[in-house]
């Protein structure tokens, strides 16, 4: 087999396809997505930021989208790869609808399909650089799952991506319980998002909350959280350690 050595990057593990391009790093990224099961279905929250490295460049990126009748997909990571995934899912739902029989793909099926896609791309060393949250309700059954860019997937009562795993999940482990009301669920999500806003530098104060129930899905209009910056440590940051 011939390798065109001059064109290949040093860390290549490719075979013969010397000219193929594969994702090495993400460019425009979204930060955490947080989601939980509540009484009637799933609640999901994500901010609308698209960072370009350390610059908070895009501030109206919708990182949650409805899929078919029964599912909601939220994504963090590379925005263009998220758009690619939406394209795949669009086709999937289209063909599912074209059968025109009583059957439809539920959230479990969509989640497993995405797992296959993500894992297969990872095996080709050309991942879709996303962490996905897939939630939905079908026939009264609530479903909430997540898939990472390397194909790790699982379901749980509450999930998060990225920084959400470190900052939001501990809160949810303490305070989540079965049959949360809608208001309590939103309150809990907002608590998580507020912590992320304070502590995640790629978070912006413009978020949406999405809900999916047996009846269907809705995504709220963008809004912002109230924040408090009058903590005495912030007001007088050098108090305990005067700089030179």
């Amino acid at each position, binding site marked *: 087999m011939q390798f065109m050595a001059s064109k290949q990057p040093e860390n290549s593990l490719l075979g013969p396809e010397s000219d193929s391009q594969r994702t090495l790093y993400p460019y425009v990224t979204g930060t955490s997505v947080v989601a939980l099961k509540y009484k009637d279905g799933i609640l999901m929250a994500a901010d609308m930021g698209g960072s370009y490295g350390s610059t908070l460049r895009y501030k109206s990126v919708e990182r949650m989208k409805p899929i078919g009748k029964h599912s909601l997909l939220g994504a963090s990571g590379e925005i263009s790869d998220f758009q690619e995934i939406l394209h795949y899912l669009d086709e999937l739902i289209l063909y599912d609808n074209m059968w025109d029989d*009583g*059957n439809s793909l539920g959230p479990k*099926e969509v989640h*497993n399909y995405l797992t296959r896609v993500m894992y297969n791309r990872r095996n080709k060393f050309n991942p879709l650089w996303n962490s996905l949250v897939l939630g939905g309700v079908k026939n009264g059954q609530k479903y909430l799952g997540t898939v990472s860019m390397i194909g790790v997937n699982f379901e749980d009562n509450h999930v998060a991506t990225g920084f959400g795993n470190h900052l939001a999940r501990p809160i949810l482990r303490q305070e989540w319980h079965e049959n949360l009301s809608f208001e309590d669920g939103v309150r809990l999500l907002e608590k998580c998002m507020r912590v992320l806003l304070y502590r995640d530098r790629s978070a912006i104060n413009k978020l949406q909350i999405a809900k999916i129930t047996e009846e269907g899905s809705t995504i709220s209009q963008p809004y912002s959280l109230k924040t408090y910056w009058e903590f005495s440590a912030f007001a007088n940051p050098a108090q305990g350690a005067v700089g030179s």
Partner: protein
Amino acid sequence: MFRNQYDTDVTTWSPAGRLFQVEYAMEAVKQGSAAIGLRSRTHIVLGCVNKANSELSSHQKKIFKVDDHIGVAIAGLTADGRVLSRYMRNECINYSFTYESPLPVGRLVVQLADKAQVCTQRSWKRPYGVGLLVAGLDESGAHLYYNCPSGNYFEYQAFAIGSRSQAAKTYLERRFENFTDASRDDLVKDALMAIRETLQGETLESSVCTIAVVGVGEPFHILDQGSVQQMIDAFEIVGEQEGPAAEPDAAAGQDASAEPEPEQGAAAGEGVAPMDI
């Protein structure tokens, strides 16, 4: 049917608008040994007659498990049936792997029908010479389909194919209105009665027939010969009684199977074979 000048190729129409090769393939189904299927709201039972060529040989496998929720009974060229069963198993397993969910039966039969249709429109192929009774459980309930060599498929409450299937169909036509709400065991008894009809007087015993069941909470499986014989014994003793809950009659000692009394007024539509020209 008689030989004519339009029957050599599957891609040749007759002036009357018929494809004789396809019709000849349907003949092959009619010559195969009988297979029957019937369903209730929650269960489907498949049964077939298993005639071995000689005392020395085993009989052919005519019922195949396709997945936990789907099974198929065939009549006609069993080799073609095996190939199609393998295709169906493949489709089911691929769908299960991708979606972690069982393939809806309705979609499988459409894929099967489209596969059969291809063979009716290629000059280098021949139609599959096998009819398939596909039994499966869906989100939308219990289903029984019949797939033709022509590429058509139909959904049935109950159906019979193969040789002497008309006798079974007549029995099913009389009884089908009871099937929707019948219990699983009554459904199996009706299946055995229908098979007995096709035997035309021969004794019904578990060595000549195979029964398979699939239902809510019950994955597709073929009943073992012991259980089948027990069920045969249970209703053979009764003989004349045709009610759905047939209890073994202690007083009766008949071993010859008697004809059940015909019931009134079953609708003609459900059990009639399509494409019978």
